[in-house]
């Protein structure tokens, strides 16, 4: 049994699986059920001045019959009185002292407001604070959430105010609705953040009903943009985690969020630099019980790899994540089709023929059976054929020995620059 205990900026939890601040962590009843099911921590649904919610709040995107490939919501922060939430946090922490409870906070960008809320939640025994600078809908129209999270100065200032009052670690939750997330992450670090978490939801409209022409969801015939999450956003989140993890100016731990649906996704985020992960959509789709496989699968993975502690995964892939200019231009892979495994759906052929580099031929073997063959000299190693192939092991992407030593674009430009310089020197 591997050691699954995780530590995010001093916040301990029995495993790295936290419930993200969202509908699943709305009440003591829910968080207690979650801890009972095995979740290591919970970020309580954002506290602030109580708001009003609309009805018809969620929508999801199905893809080819698969439900909840993406998820969209227009629900705001907690609509329960602060006192009720504080009382339930206190009770829950008492019942589950080893599990992490983090209070998600969102108030107006005023120093006294931050001081007041930080003090009140720390009084009931939370293990840490998460500043919600990410929520893209509703609250942003009032100058909170992503409206302040998109302005590095506001992120820095508010983090600073929270830190002035805080005794527990402060996590800053970042919005992806920004060109370069490292800009706001750095601002959080300058403000004194102990950790950053990402990503919050992405501005979205889940769909339009093609019969009524209403938005999906709609509130009495009118819609507004929501926040997008779920499996579809995972690649976006993973990149943002990776960008922050490899930035030398962002030297605080990261809590990874965004489309994590199982233990494998969690491992990916941790390898790319997350110290733990936060999950919401998967729990909303299947219930709290899914954490059992997350824990079990992660444990089996670590045991199989003979890694004693989950913390050893953190950041292991970060050195492998770089800029395009550092990729080896002389590295070469080509597709090879194993005709004994291939089922002849010809999807690779048509994908290559119509949309890539026209190098997969449909041929007949000696017995007249249909076979597919790659003309390796024309293959650019794009992977498209192996991506569309429905059969495991039918197409291998094979590395070819390069005739040339590794050379990146940056190497090339540097050499060219040198030549240019020499030429320049020679010019009288």
């Amino acid at each position: 049994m591997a050691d699954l205990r995780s530590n995010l900026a001093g916040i301990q939890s029995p495993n790295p699986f936290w419930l993200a601040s969202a509908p699943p962590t709305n009440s003591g009843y829910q968080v207690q059920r979650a801890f009972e099911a095995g979740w290591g921590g919970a970020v309580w649904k954002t506290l602030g001045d109580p708001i009003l919610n609309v009805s018809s709040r969620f929508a999801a995107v199905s893809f080819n019959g698969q439900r909840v490939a993406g998820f969209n919501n227009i629900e705001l922060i907690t609509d329960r009185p602060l006192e009720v939430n504080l009382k339930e946090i206190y009770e829950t922490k008492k019942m589950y002292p080893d599990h992490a409870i983090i209070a998600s906070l969102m108030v107006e960008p005023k120093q006294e407001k931050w001081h007041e809320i930080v003090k009140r939640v720390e009084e009931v025994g939370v293990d840490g604070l998460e500043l919600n600078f990410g929520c893209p809908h509703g609250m942003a129209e009032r100058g909170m959430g992503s409206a302040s999270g998109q302005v590095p100065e506001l992120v820095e200032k508010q983090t600073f105010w929270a830190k002035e009052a805080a005794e527990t670690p402060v996590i800053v939750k970042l919005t992806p609705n920004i060109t370069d997330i490292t800009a706001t992450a750095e601002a959080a670090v300058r403000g004194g953040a102990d950790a950053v978490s990402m990503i919050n939801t992405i501005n979205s409209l889940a769909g339009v009903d093609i019969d009524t022409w209403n938005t999906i969801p709609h509130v009495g015939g009118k819609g507004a943009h929501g926040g997008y999450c779920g499996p579809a956003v995972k690649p976006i989140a993973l990149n943002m985690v990776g960008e922050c993890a490899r930035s030398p100016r962002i030297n605080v731990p990261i809590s990874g969020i965004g489309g994590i649906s199982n233990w494998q996704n969690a491992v990916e985020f941790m390898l790319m630099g997350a110290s733990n992960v936060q999950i919401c959509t998967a729990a909303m789709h299947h219930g709290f019980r899914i954490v059992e496989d997350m824990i079990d699968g992660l444990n089996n993975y670590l045991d199989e790899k003979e890694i004693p502690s989950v913390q050893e995964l953190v950041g292991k892939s970060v050195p492998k994540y770089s800029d395009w200019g550092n990729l080896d231009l002389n590295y070469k892979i080509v597709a090879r089709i194993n005709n004994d495994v291939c089922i002849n759906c010809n999807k690779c052929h048509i994908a290559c023929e119509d949309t890539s580099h026209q190098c997969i031929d449909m041929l007949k073997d000696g017995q007249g059976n249909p076979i597919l063959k790659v003309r390796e000299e024309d293959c650019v190693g794009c992977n498209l054929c192996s991506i569309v192939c429905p059969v495991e092991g039918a197409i291998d992407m094979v590395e070819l020995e390069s005739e040339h030593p590794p050379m990146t674009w940056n190497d090339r430009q540097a050499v060219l620059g040198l030549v240019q310089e020499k030429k320049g020197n020679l010019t009288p």
Partner: protein
Amino acid sequence: MTKSEKMKISLTDLSRNFEEVHPALTDREAVEEANRCLYCYDAPCIQACPTGIDIPSFIKKIASGNLKGSATTIMSSNPVGASCARVCPTEELCEGACVLNHSTKPIVIGDLQRYATDWAIKNDQVLFKKGERNGKTVAVVGGGPAGLSAARELARLGYDVTIFESSSKAGGLNSYGIVSFRLPQEVSFWEVDQVKNLDVKVRTNTTVGKDISADEMLSTYDSIVLAAGMAHVPDLGIEGEELDGVYDAIEFVKDTKTKPLTDAFIGKTVAVIGAGNTAIDGATCSVRLGAEKVKILYRRTQEEMSAYDFEFEFAKQDGVEFEWLTQPVKIHGDEKGSVRSIECVKMELGEPDKDGRRRPQPVQGSNFKIPVDAVIKAIGQTRHLSLIEQFQLDHKDGVVQVTESYRTSNPKVFACGDVVFGKGKGEAMVVTAAQQGKDAAYAIHKQFKEQSVTI
């Protein structure tokens, strides 16, 4: 518990036993299955379909919610595509060719085809338009799968088409010959209506050769498609065949589709002679009419049986018993002239005969009697010999001889479907007949186009 109770056969409401047995896909099942289709390029399922339905396309259209487009894709290639969705031996055709046989499990193409065409039936869709009239007339003899198919394509190409149908409704085998619990009549009638919607005239209760002569037809129409199918089951040639309780399997099945279901079979013992798909139909219909014991008697073995495997399994599920190497030699009756028993002789297989199947020979002195209340003959079908001869067409034992483009010895007459289906030419399938009907129509069109160019 009696056998009929075990089979969930109702003896009080026989009509329930004739409801379609294979359940339709639900919307969710259809979409899930449609999404499982790989949408192969140059897909082998298309090649395996005798009518060349663009199967990946119609399945993709189910996945995208374009059911009208899906049904149109199917019916455009196969004018009897709704029936074929139910009666095609799909595991030997499209589903057998599905590439997923080599990785997981094949797509249930037949069920998806039924899903799309059922939608079109339920929503009263008219999928095709007639072509601009070109002034030519064509008569189609027989409104079965081949005839309907030829008529539909000719009407789309602009021909003025009249179908001559001897029964009271068109559809042929699909309307009358395939058991209701496989193919409900309304499916076939919808296909007929699709053809009628193209202004194809259907003259029912009209037997060519009796009600209208071949000569008259030849002089009235520019071209003729002979798609008359096959006739009744031949005589067994044994004593007692005229007794009350001896049935022609084709007529027997037709009665279950056209008349109030008889309760005369409840609790009775039935022997069915033959082991083709029609024999299975006769046997399973008997079970559904409440017969207590149904036996199929076949003079060869399971090896040589021509029924599809799934039909054989289906009959076994229905509790039908099979007596191999058993040949009837006499039917015994009582004083009132009703069947009492059937006398059989045991057979053994000798040398292979012309069609490659081992010839059965009687075992001397092995005669035995099986007490039965009814005998159903299902040993093949005879040919419409006099009709063929009225048209003066070349034929071999009643099989009309045609060129590759389905032209007969009379260049004005084309033939397709069972009238051209000869021994040893593979399986007679509805879907093959449909394709032949299309091909005959295209051949006629080509002939007229060439003539107009020459003139």
